[in-house]
């Protein structure tokens, strides 16, 4: 009997489901960053608004990268339904605390996919997901460094203005070293 399942795709049902879940997570991240950008814009943090808008775009690119991969492998990429996006945030600092939490959540999910790929001996997806593992090092680093600005500069007086000014300058070590 022909192996029709393998003819369709090399992705197992489990890995395909995990990748579709990740598509949704990336789409959610993109939407949350956009909401954060809008909040920063409304509250006068122009640089942060631009930075977060750029982040939102990046998250969408991540989503599309996985989306295309699933389809390229013969799977069924699902366009995600995104709901419950917070539009209001506690404070300027709260925005970036949430951003870090979101990145940690994404890292944990990507780690899980890598783990499942290894167990399922799906080395093609494992190789694909390695790009995301590397990307998460940068994402978490930048989110942490930004949050540290709040402690280093302090929020009193013109502190928030200074923080807002410095946020777009935060880059990951390797990237910064190249400049």
């Amino acid at each position: 009997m022909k192996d029709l399942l393998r003819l369709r795709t090399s992705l197992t049902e489990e890995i395909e489901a995990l990748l579709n879940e990740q598509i949704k997570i990336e789409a959610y991240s993109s939407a949350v960053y956009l909401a954060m950008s809008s909040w920063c814009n409304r509250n006068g943090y122009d640089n942060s608004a631009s930075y977060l808008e750029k982040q939102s775009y990046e998250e969408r690119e991540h989503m599309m990268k996985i989306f295309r991969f699933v389809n390229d492998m013969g799977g069924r990429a699902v366009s995600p339904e995104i709901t419950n996006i917070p539009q209001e945030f506690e404070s300027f600092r709260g925005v970036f605390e949430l951003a870090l939490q979101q990145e940690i959540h994404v890292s944990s999910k990507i780690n899980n996919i890598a783990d499942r790929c290894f167990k399922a001996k799906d080395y093609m997806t494992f190789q694909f997901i390695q790009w995301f593992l590397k990307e998460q090092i940068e994402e978490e680093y930048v989110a942490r460094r930004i949050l540290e600005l709040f402690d280093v500069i302090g929020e009193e007086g013109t502190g928030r203005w200074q923080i807002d000014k410095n946020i777009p300058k935060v880059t990951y070590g390797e990237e910064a070293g190249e400049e």
Partner: protein
Amino acid sequence: MQGKKNCQLVEVFKTEQGIVYQCNRQNMFCLEFSGVSSFFKITDFLDFIKKVNKIDIEAMASSTSPGSDIAILMPHYTERCFVLTMTDVLKLRELLSGAKFMLQLNSMIFQCLSNPVS
């Protein structure tokens, strides 16, 4: 519309209520259930299994509203409308899950044969 004429059918799984065949010529699946045949492409067949598994049997059993004991599935990829009683759902699930298991087993056997342990 697919017919059995140009098919090279191989039985995948059979129960008292129906049979799932695989057509090696057209790379399709044929589901015979309640005396009617339906053809599915590979992805559609897997999607159909998911749809059947998603039917909430408990809700069907507990609801007293008229018609709640019937589940209707009209997948866009077949011309057939599946009108299923609770018993039908259970019987169809048994058939489809058996077929899915056999397909996965077949995949595993292919994998083992292509990577023999020395």
